[in-house]
């Protein structure tokens, strides 16, 4: 059972306080987008063995959404950060590089 540090309230929350929200950094496509864009936005998801970026909500806690970078194979957590960003911040990316040199995830590395 995971523990993630909630960057919003500072609690090291166990999984029963958290709600998983799937992949992070997905760009929304609305009216005006073509079928492929919209289809990919709604349905296509990464399924990596290794570095992954996810959305979590501290549901039984401060209620805030945040992002977590972790390894799906070992459950190592590289860091958590606020949800109000469209890309992983540099310190998180550096932390991953230190542990998993050469990592690539979608357009980020």
């Amino acid at each position, binding site marked *: 059972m995971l523990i993630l540090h909630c960057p*919003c*309230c*500072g*609690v090291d929350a*166990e999984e*029963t*306080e958290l709600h998983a929200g799937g992949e992070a950094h997905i760009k929304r496509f609305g009216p005006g987008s073509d079928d492929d864009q919209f289809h990919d936005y709604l349905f296509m998801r990464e399924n990596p063995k290794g570095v992954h970026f996810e959305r979590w909500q501290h549901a*039984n*806690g*401060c*209620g*805030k959404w945040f992002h977590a970078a972790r390894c799906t194979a070992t459950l190592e957590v590289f860091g958590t950060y606020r949800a109000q960003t469209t890309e992983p911040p540099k310190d998180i990316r550096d932390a991953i590089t230190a542990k998993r040199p050469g990592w690539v995830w979608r357009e980020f590395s």
Partner: protein
Amino acid sequence: MSEPISALNGARYDGIATIEELGLQGMITLRGDLDEKGLAKAAAAATDQQMPGPRKAHVTDDSGLCWMSPDEVLVLVPYAEVEDKLAGMVKALGNSHALAVNVSDARAVFRVSGTHAREVVAKLAPVDLSDGAFKPGDFRRTRLAQVAAAFWMEEDGAFRIVCFRSVADYVFKLLKVAAQPGSEVGVL
């Protein structure tokens, strides 16, 4: 108008800790920029308390402020004064972007006290409640078994627990089970 009635009308249980439903507590959810001076001033004016930092509660008797999230504070005031305090706060907030709303009747409040109070709560919440980790003035939003709850510790080592009114009966019964005679863990 008739007298207002709290969810459990002051129910009480004595086991390895004492469980009391405390009756109505004035509560205002205040959302806004907690670092903003005007908001902190409005909250302080209503409660005579300074704005608490993360995971802290500043409470004396029926008045106080509890840090709920980076943009939310729970304002405690005497129940009878909640409408006046709310009106005062709304006025003080003026045009700044904030939300203040009376939630007094949406909640139930319990006090868990006695030697084993920490253990009773630690049976239901995934929180480190050892005395080094959770001290008077500490505030935590979490779950009690299957429902959301928040609690803080008072100066005498007792807990105040806030939950939704609809589950007050469930929470009271939970606390009773957790405080049943012979269930001392003997570690907290």
